[in-house]
């Protein structure tokens, strides 16, 4: 803890009368290294609902966790990253953390304001002011409050640092961000940029804001849509001033542009993306080291050099994408069927204990694969060709440390699962083969794709089916059987992408309905069989 904060607390003790009557204890700092606080968040993210409280607590988390893991937030069940209660239990039982529960924002401020130098007021009538407030709060070690929460902050002894009430009224997002850029950009860590996107309108889900603040990053949701010429130009300006391999946290705004536009633009600057805007507790987890002696061990099903002779049947394998921690990993059924999971490799740099947790609770049927395109989420086609080998090399290094023998690529720069193509030209495929010489194989796509290769016993396969969460089970079974008819050579290797919102019990029901010609196998087994008896037609993207 910074000593100056102790002194200031003595001087501000006079305001505690606002807090003590509420039943809270006097401020105390956790005495032991592994003592921390936890607090539950509600599921209301509306500006006119609980967002002001959520934003206050998340910003407090960013400040409180500046020097160590102090505040862990437990997100509601329907939060996209649905692991926060389970990870809390892991930290408690396996990593010697002891958590005291905080019941209210008043109590949270009282107990955790040590690092806070003040507060920044955002304007509830101007949503973007909250995004700018996070930038200011990160730089100034402040919390963000709405007008109604000013007495709360003052009562905790905090002083106003910035007041955005009415400041941006009538201004466009471009004008607001230009103001913020002029005022803050030069002070921000330009190795990080936080996209406070995701949902728009009357809501915001700023789960990543604590970490963006912790990193002193600039916050934005500027558009990457070239048709939005002015915002697009400013986005380019900011990205051009960041270093290659910088990290973008958060997620693009669904109301401003598309994921494809966003990632394509970042990739063109060799900037890495790690989403989403809903990533929880990263400022806490970044301080927790790996367990002493912990080694990442994947649940391999075959030796890399094993020879597997397939039978004349349909082999199907399942991969859940969109990264660890989102979707089915904590839903019923995991372990019942072989499943491959995209690993969020960047956690090795930012919060390795997250990976420790997911590896340790895995079952023999959970097989981890490297992703996505590069060291994090990036598209190879828009990445400058001369930079691609370096990005792949870094990804390969992460992959090896995490014991991942399969690597996955996705490129939506020229299409998506509805239209266009998500295929790769031969020179890009060459780069992956050269940069990852000892993988078992590669998987490409998200929706189905048509890039296939086989070199030195290492298959390069594309997804043949995207299992939509909205597709009726009977029709999904019909689709998979139709694919087996369309691909009449045996063996037929069918790689299925399972969208994260489908739990494994649903998937198992579909797999059980496919009949005896199909056999569900782990991904590494399928790749070794495909290496022995390839039946895919070699194909690349041709312009």
């Amino acid at each position, binding site marked *: 803890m910074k000593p100056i904060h102790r002194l200031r607390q003595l001087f501000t003790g006079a305001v505690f009368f606002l807090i003590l009557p509420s039943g809270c204890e006097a401020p105390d700092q956790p005495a032991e290294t592994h003592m921390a606080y936890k607090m539950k968040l509600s599921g209301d993210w509306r500006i006119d609902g609980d967002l002001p409280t959520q934003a206050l607590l998340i910003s407090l988390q960013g400040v409180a966790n500046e020097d160590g893991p102090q505040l862990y937030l437990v997100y509601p069940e329907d939060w996209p990253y649905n692991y926060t209660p389970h990870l809390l239990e892991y930290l408690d039982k396996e990593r010697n953390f002891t958590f005291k529960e905080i019941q209210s924002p008043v109590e949270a401020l009282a107990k955790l304001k040590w690092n806070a130098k003040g507060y920044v007021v955002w304007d509830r009538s101007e949503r973007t002011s909250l995004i700018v407030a996070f930038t200011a709060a990160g730089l100034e070690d402040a919390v963000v409050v709405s007008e109604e929460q000013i007495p709360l902050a003052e009562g905790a002894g905090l002083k106003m640092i910035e007041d955005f009430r009415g400041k941006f009224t009538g201004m466009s997002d471009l004008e607001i961000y230009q103001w913020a850029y002029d005022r803050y950009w030069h002070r921000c860590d330009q190795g990080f940029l936080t996209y406070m996107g995701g949902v728009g309108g009357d809501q915001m889900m700023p789960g990543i804001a604590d970490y963006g603040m912790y990193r002193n990053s600039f916050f934005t949701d500027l558009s990457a849509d070239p048709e939005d010429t002015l915002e697009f130009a400013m986005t380019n300006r900011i990205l051009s001033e960041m270093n290659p391999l910088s990290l973008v946290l958060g997620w693009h705004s669904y109301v401003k542009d598309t994921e494809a536009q966003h990632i394509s633009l970042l990739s063109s600057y060799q900037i890495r993306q790690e989403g989403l805007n809903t990533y929880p507790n990263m400022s806490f987890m970044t301080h927790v080291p790996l367990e002493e002696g912990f080694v990442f061990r994947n649940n391999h099903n075959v030796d890399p050099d094993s020879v597997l002779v397939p039978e004349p049947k349909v082999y199907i394998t399942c991969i859940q994408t969109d990264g660890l921690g989102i979707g089915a990993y904590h839903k019923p059924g995991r372990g019942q069927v072989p499943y491959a999971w995209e690993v969020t490799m960047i956690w090795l740099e930012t919060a390795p204990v997250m990976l420790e947790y997911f590896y340790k609770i895995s079952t023999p049927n959970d097989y981890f694969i490297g992703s996505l395109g590069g060291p994090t989420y990036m598209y190879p086609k828009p990445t400058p060709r001369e930079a691609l080998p370096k990005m792949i090399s870094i990804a390969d290094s992460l992959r090896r440390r995490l014991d991942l023998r399969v690597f996955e690529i996705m490129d939506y720069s020229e299409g998506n699962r509805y239209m266009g193509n998500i295929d790769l030209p031969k020179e890009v495929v060459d780069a992956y083969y050269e940069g990852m010489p000892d993988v078992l194989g590669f998987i490409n796509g998200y*929706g189905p794709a048509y890039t296939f290769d086989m070199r030195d016993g290492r298959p390069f396969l594309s997804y043949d089916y*995207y299992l*939509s969460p909205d*597709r009726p089970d009977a029709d999904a*079974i019909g689709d998979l059987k139709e694919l087996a*008819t*369309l691909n*009449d050579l045996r063996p037929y290797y069918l790689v299925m992408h399972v969208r994260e919102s489908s739990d494994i019990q649903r998937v198992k029901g579909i797999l059980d309905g496919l009949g005896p010609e199909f056999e569900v196998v782990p991904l590494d087994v399928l790749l070794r069989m495909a290496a022995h008896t390839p039946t895919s037609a070699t194909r690349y993207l041709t312009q």
Partner: protein
Amino acid sequence: MKSKRPRLLEAALAGAVVLLLLAFHAVRISAQGEESALSGLWKLEGERSTDIDPWRECTYDIRQEESQLTLVKTLRASRYYQRDSISVIPDDQEREAPITPGKWMEQVHMGARVEAGSTRLVRARWEEGGKVLYLQSRETVQTSQGDAPVIIERRFHISEDGTTMALTEARSTRTAGSPLVYDFSRVE
């Protein structure tokens, strides 16, 4: 109190006129050179149809020019769409026709696509006294293992009053799943 009877009579007469017009529209079918009752813009009624996920909307825009019918199918989901146009002469003769390249519109989540420059063989005829348009398409799709032939048969059946159209499909490669049955309502 003013009687409502005259107003009811007017409404009944108006309804009768509409029905007569629709019936007139419905019988102007089948013969070459006459406008087909299928002509018009049709919108899928999703709740009464087989699932079309990932698409949220489907329309058929059917136009007739002399003896040729052109059927334009459009699938939409948020900002994305796919469109395929097919022109046929319903004389039961097989003809070569272009096919929209890209992801296979029958189900874009399946690993099948149409190569650029591909063509299909189409055959169309009227059935059931001109109430049903039969359309067969023989096409080739690319899959992970190479090229695969598919025969698609479609039957467009217009209702007596001309306001709804039922489409049934059969694909030579599809052996399971829901019957491919789609209900459309006339938009114009």
